[in-house]
């Protein structure tokens, strides 16, 4: 019985069955069984803590996939007071008002508008490298790539903002000392598209004026610099670049989040609340719309691949993930989990069909990689050069101060004095593998075991591959978090902004609360999000978005109804309280006192040590969670 249900629900972690008018036999069985177990469970729990049935405890939520919170919602009118207590939030109050005044069909437009509004409002502030020549910052890096890639276009319809032109085969080789292109090709194509759009109009064409090479005469460079200073002052360039980020958000990230919430069975009110919770996530907004980067496209593509996996489109999902990787190599942090899921699915299906699927996925992956890199494939030296630029192993263990294990260790042990860069790189690689492999192996084992058991019970015949997903799909967000966090904590050359990668899968899980479970997931997600933003404070302060940091963070915590004092007693509650206290203390100290002269980075080091500690605990918790979920998934497949 388990497996067909699995397929029906797509293995989601918070599936809400529709109130079925045509009662499918399977759903009828499900409802009966679930309601029985639900009532038993909730009565048990209500004995313990005052009738909050909003959240299953962290374990065995694979079981709770099949508990119909829809049923609870229908039964709610009589007993609304109790479940609302711990999960009420201003967002929900707002959504309830919208629904009750008959504006349910407005949910999506309104939430998109609110998300855009917040993004633009944050964009009013400073950005990385504002008015800081000669190198400026990330906005200039992206702008430079726009002008670099689009300068290769020759068309009479396009305006010519500068007389220089760089053909595509020199993209990865052009002027390395000044923001040389070091992202994979999809970023280059994206820049090409934006650059071409800018060059369509004479007003925007100067935004993508290519800087003369560093070797060219000094007055050329200073003339270009003068033009840039003028554009910076006029402000139109900033808003154009900002808008390009927001439209990218809208096309990829916002659609992915809304779709994910829908796929996970949320509709109407709960979908709106869940999606807004994710979309207003402060970390991403501050980095993308404040600091200035295009991370949301990479994250959105990865989320789209998860969405596609849910729909059973494994090949398309793999392609979407390749695109994500091709946009930013940082998506590599996710690759163990994606790999484990896809290989696991082949194992779950088993036999010849499984093998066939594996071959198809492999072919699709290789083919899409080849397509992405097609312009750079020949001659091989070109490809090598691109790859060398994308993976700069020659740099140090860590560049800036970042809240991972190496930097935290560095407080006590000066690692970089102990060993050469090469040795440290190997050490980091080894540590990362050690941290990632258990979850990969676990995922594979779960898929294999679940597949074997269901085949043994005859519900999953090998030729029955057109529908259904393995139980590991429900574990995928956790697995993505574990693998990205492992990379963040242990790998080589990590940036503080990379914390966005572990945060994304955790944040999308926060919607689970709207379906009535995943309480601990939610609490951990808020904690890690808050500390994640805190860990980026030095960066944000430098960019002049300190005010936005405070406002966006406070507003997000307020609208999702988060109050660490009101959490139920648990480890995460005390951890949250302690880490917030320390964070406030560090901020307060920084405000009133200058760091001592011999320790100029004192506050930064304190910040990253605390953050790294919380991240490490989050990693351990998620690993435990993965084991529990996996165990439950295998157990579920037994009957």
């Amino acid at each position: 019985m388990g497996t067909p249900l699995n397929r029906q629900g797509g293995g989601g972690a918070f599936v809400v069955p529709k109130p079925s008018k045509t009662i499918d036999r399977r759903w009828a069985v499900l409802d009966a069984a679930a309601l029985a177990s639900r009532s038993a469970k909730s009565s048990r729990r209500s004995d313990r803590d005052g009738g909050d049935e909003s959240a299953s405890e962290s374990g065995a939520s694979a079981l709770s996939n099949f508990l119909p919170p829809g049923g609870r919602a229908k039964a709610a009118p009589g007993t609304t007071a109790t479940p609302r207590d711990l999960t009420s939030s201003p967002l929900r109050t707002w959504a309830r008002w919208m629904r009750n005044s008959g504006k349910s069909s407005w949910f999506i437009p309104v939430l998109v508008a609110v998300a855009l509004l917040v993004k633009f409002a944050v964009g009013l502030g400073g950005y990385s490298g504002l008015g800081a020549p000669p190198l400026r910052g990330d906005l200039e890096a992206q702008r430079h790539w726009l002008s670099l890639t689009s300068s290769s276009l020759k068309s009479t319809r396009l305006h010519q903002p500068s007389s220089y032109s760089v053909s595509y085969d020199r993209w990865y080789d052009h002027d390395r000392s000044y923001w040389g292109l070091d992202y994979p090709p999809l970023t280059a194509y994206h820049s090409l598209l934006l650059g071409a759009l800018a060059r369509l109009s004479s007003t925007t064409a100067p935004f993508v004026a290519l800087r003369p090479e560093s070797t060219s005469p000094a007055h050329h460079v200073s003339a270009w610099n003068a033009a840039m200073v003028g554009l910076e002052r006029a402000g139109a360039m900033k808003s154009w670049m900002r808008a390009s980020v927001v439209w990218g958000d809208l096309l990829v990230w916002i659609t992915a989040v809304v779709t994910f919430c829908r796929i996970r069975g949320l509709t109407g009110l709960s979908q709106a609340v869940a999606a807004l919770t994710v979309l207003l996530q402060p970390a991403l907004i501050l980095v993308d719309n404040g600091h200035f980067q295009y991370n949301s496209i990479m994250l959105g593509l990865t989320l789209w691949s998860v969405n596609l996996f849910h729909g059973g489109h494994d090949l398309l999902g793999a392609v979407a993930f390749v695109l994500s990787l091709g946009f930013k190599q940082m998506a590599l942090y996710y690759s163990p989990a994606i790999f484990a899921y896809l290989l696991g699915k082949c194992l779950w299906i088993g036999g010849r069909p499984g093998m066939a699927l594996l071959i198809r996925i492999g072919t699709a992956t290789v083919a899409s990689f080849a397509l992405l890199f097609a312009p750079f494939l020949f001659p091989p030296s070109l490809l090598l050069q691109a790859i060398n630029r994308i993976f700069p192993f020659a740099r140090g263990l860590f560049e800036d101060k970042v809240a991972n294990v190496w930097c935290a260790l560095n407080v006590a042990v000066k690692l970089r004095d102990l060993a050469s860069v090469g040795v440290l790189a190997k050490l980091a690689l080894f540590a990362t593998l050690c941290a990632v492999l258990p979850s990969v192996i676990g995922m594979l084992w779960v898929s294999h075991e679940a597949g074997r058991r269901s085949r043994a019970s005859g519900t999953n015949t090998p030729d029955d591959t057109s529908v259904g997903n393995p139980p590991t799909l429900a574990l995928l967000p956790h697995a993505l978090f574990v693998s990205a966090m492992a990379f963040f904590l242990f790998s080589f050359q990590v940036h503080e902004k990379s914390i966005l990668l572990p945060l994304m899968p955790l944040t999308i899980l926060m919607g689970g609360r709207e379906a009535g479970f995943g309480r601990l997931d939610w609490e951990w997600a808020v904690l890690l999000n808050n500390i994640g933003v805190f860990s980026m404070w030095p960066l944000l302060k430098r960019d002049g978005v300190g005010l936005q940091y405070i406002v966006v963070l406070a507003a997000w915590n307020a609208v999702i109804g988060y109050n660490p004092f009101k959490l139920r007693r648990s480890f995460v509650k005390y951890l949250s309280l302690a880490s917030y206290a320390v964070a406030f203390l560090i901020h307060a100290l920084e405000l009133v006192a200058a760091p001592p002269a011999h320790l100029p980075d004192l506050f930064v080091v304190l910040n990253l040590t605390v953050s790294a500690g919380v991240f490490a605990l989050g990693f351990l918790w998620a690993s435990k969670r993965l084991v529990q979920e996996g165990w439950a998934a295998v157990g579920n497949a037994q009957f």
Partner: protein
Amino acid sequence: MLKLTRSSSHSTDFEVHRNWLAITYSLPLSQWYFDTTSEWTLDYPPFFAYFERVLSVFAFIVDPKIVQLDNLGYDAWSAVAFQRTTVLVSELVLASAVFQWARRSQKPDYPTAFIIAVSLLFHPGLMIVDHIHFQYNGFLLGILLWSIVAARENNLYLCAALFATLLNFKHIFIYLAPPYFVFLLRRHCYNKSGAFQLDRLVELGAIVLSIVAISFGPFLLAGGPSQIVQIFTRLFPFQRGLNHAYWAANVWALVSAVDRVLVKYLVTRGWPISAEALSSASRGLVGETTFGVLPNITPGLTFSITLGFILIFLAKLWFDPTYKRFLDSVVLSAMTSFLWGWHVHEKAVLLFLVPLSLTAVEDEDHLRAYIIASAAGVYSLFPLLIKPIETPIKIIFTVLWCSLVFGSLRKVVYRPNPSLISFLVGYAELAYLAGFFVLQFYVGFLHDALFGPLYAMPDFAAQAVAAAGAQCVQNATDVLADGSCTGIVDAVVGEVASNILVEGKYEFLPLMLTSLYCALGIVWAWLRLSWAYLVR
């Protein structure tokens, strides 16, 4: 919460208020209205000056540089944060007023009144003028709403006192004084049988006069009558032109536009047009307006027209001094003086938008007028925000606000069976609202695409710098050890940077279209309201 995020831009009004903080902090009372250190002299009535004086104490604690008189244009982070916070805090007056109004509201019922209250707190007009542009309108309108609430509760002494206080904060509210006067007189000073009660008038007069005494008294004591004369010359500067720097969306904007069109047309037909009018017509919007064809407008004319209309409304109020009619006449007085007044400021739209919101769900006429006037009024404020980055914010915020508020309020208003005319009018209004999107498309995109602005290309800049470099090589004394000539090139670089934006043609056109289109809507809303007020 969002308000704080918007702290990143500020305007001349920000510096105006900073300067007032400095004046009131550093100078003795007798000098406040004489100081001319900055061009932004103190031109609000005394209560506002006292208000600034109170704020300046805190300002001094936050950052002493804010209140230095000669520290013109100071906009450090501390100053911005402090002044923004004062606006936010002073807006609590508005918040308390709207919730007080909603709490005991009978018609509209509480849930609707609550929506209106929230809609006022998040009014895009207030957002633009107070939080982005920088003024204290929320605070002042809060006092106005408190006095309206007092009128509703029949607490007429309080109503009079609050309004007198308000007048002493900002004299622009004098436009609302006639309905207040008539309402208080009729409601309070006549008993049920219609007999006049002088003692009550004396009481009211005493309250108002004592407030004026508190306000102006200190100045009289400090410097005698010359102080009062000086204050009044500051408060009512009659030397200004018919239209403000750019046109407020009122009748005179429409008249001026008609005149411009006639001038252009008649010039082609060879009519003699005075040179003064021609230059006035061709230079767009700035400065005094001289009409070429139509008769010139004098302040006296505008005042008589305004007063004439207001008197008509007051006549009705005189015979029917109910709270509902009082509120309507307040709205109509504000609208009339906005539409027909001399040198009206575009920010004065808030004066009628806020009380109009309170009556929005009265009936179909009010609702329609409210929708049209709010949309037009808010849009007419858009040009106050000039930074391109602010454009999407103001648009998204306004569209969101309009759709949520209008959508909710439409539901609770009974819609009478449409006649053919009201049916057509309904569609015309819808088309008018849709027209804002077209207008925004033109103003925000198409105009730039057609007429510039152009940025000087970096290649031109390169030539300029190269020329400077060549010149400097010839002039051997400037050449430094490494052969470069940093000084001259840097100077040219600075020049190029500041001249990169080349002004486009027809710069005035977007502004003109905006104020004309908005004027149409506001005039229509005014006509509709007047008709409903006088006929129904």
